[in-house]
């Protein structure tokens, strides 16, 4: 019963993430929009790695591709890569203090953007380069906020150095 409710909560949170990723923003702050799906999946794969699998990353990516009209598989591949890396190294990363975790997240989000950019380039689509740097930065801030809000583990056992 509890597991079932949790399953529904997961689905709802993922759908809400997709909605966040496509809610219209004013032109002024639109370039600052974090990559919501990547941020949320990274949070789960670092904090509760067995909660969402690679399959979730794949389907979320496909949904995002459909929603944003990107090449089918583009976001899916980028999400797969960062979720795989986060999942693989989460044991090593979880002992990091927040500052180092934030740098790791920034690097992973940067990698995500880079893969998207690379695929755009190979597919011959013209995209600006400079604005690509902003979403990983805002995404990292959002990730840290989520960490401070939701992570109970830290309060129970302050294993910081």
């Amino acid at each position, binding site marked *: 019963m509890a*597991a079932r409710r*949790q*399953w529904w909560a997961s689905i709802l949170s993922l*759908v809400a993430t*997709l*909605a966040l990723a*496509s*809610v*219209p*923003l004013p*032109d002024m702050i*639109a*370039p600052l*929009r974090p990559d919501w799906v990547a941020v949320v999946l990274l949070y789960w794969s670092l904090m*509760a*790695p*067995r*909660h*969402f*699998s*690679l*399959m*979730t*990353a*794949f*389907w979320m*990516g*496909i*949904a995002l591709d*459909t*929603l*944003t*009209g*990107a*090449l*089918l*598989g*583009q976001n*899916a*591949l980028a999400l*797969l*890569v960062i979720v*795989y890396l986060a*999942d*693989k190294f989460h044991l090593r990363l979880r002992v990091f203090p927040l500052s180092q975790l934030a740098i790791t997240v920034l690097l992973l989000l940067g990698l995500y953007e880079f893969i998207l950019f690379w*695929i*755009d380039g190979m*597919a011959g*689509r*013209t*995209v*600006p380069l400079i*604005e690509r740097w902003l979403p990983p930065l805002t995404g990292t801030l959002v990730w840290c906020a989520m960490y401070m809000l939701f992570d109970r583990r830290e309060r129970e056992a302050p294993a910081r150095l």
Partner: protein
Amino acid sequence: MSAQGRTGAGFGRSGFSMGVRFLLLAIACIALMLLDRREQHLVKVRQALSLVVYPVRVAVDFPFSAWHSLNDTFAARDALIAENREFRRERLETESRLQRLEVLERENERLRALLDSTARVGSRALVAEILSVDLDPYRQRLDLNRGLVDDVFVGQALIDAQGVVGQVVRVGPLTSEAVLITDADHAVPVSINRNGLRTIAVGTGDSGRLRLPYLTNNADIVVGDLLISSGLGGVFPAGYPVGRVLEITRRPDQAFAEVVAEPSSSLDRDREVLLVWQEAEDEPAAAEPASEAAVAEAH
């Protein structure tokens, strides 16, 4: 929740190790991208997927459309009366202009009959609402609330009250996706209304700007020239305003002038656009190359 909470209950957990699963999924992604690249292999898959994400689109759009309808419901009486008066005045103006247009249309038909060329075809239009959904931030795209059920097709032209807006690039069952004329990957065949000079207007990625990169330094173009769709290429119906020339830079050391134009339609303010069906009688495209050849001969 704890890390070892529910190992077996995830989505699609299989017996493979993590690395193998990652590789398989990554290969699947690459295969999808290769198939999707040419746009036609995955049309059915795309349509099915767009139906799956339809609820998300509607949910995101809902607060915005609700706000609009609320605004309509509670609009003040004075504002409505003022608006109504404005519309009446506009209608009068438009109708008087339309009378002249009808005479001109008749005349045009007669002249075309004399020249033995195909008549301009009538067109059908349908109002489509733009869904308030942000698509790829780096591209100028729109989501429309019309799809296959309304006979929308890929390559269909989109106009608004002021001019050409864009064209449909992908059609789902209930929604469709359009690209604006200002998208960096989009180009419209245009002609200059004043002298019929043909060229191509290319998008810049900025919703207030178009470029005309294929005009030589001595081309007859001045600031303020109206660009209309030329109908070449067969996507956009001929004769709709596309933009107005904003600035021209002629550099003696360059073969081509740098011409910037401003789109006529209010691309980033629209909430509704018109989908146009050109009812093709005899292919109008067949007549165009002939006239182009005539122009080339005249030169």
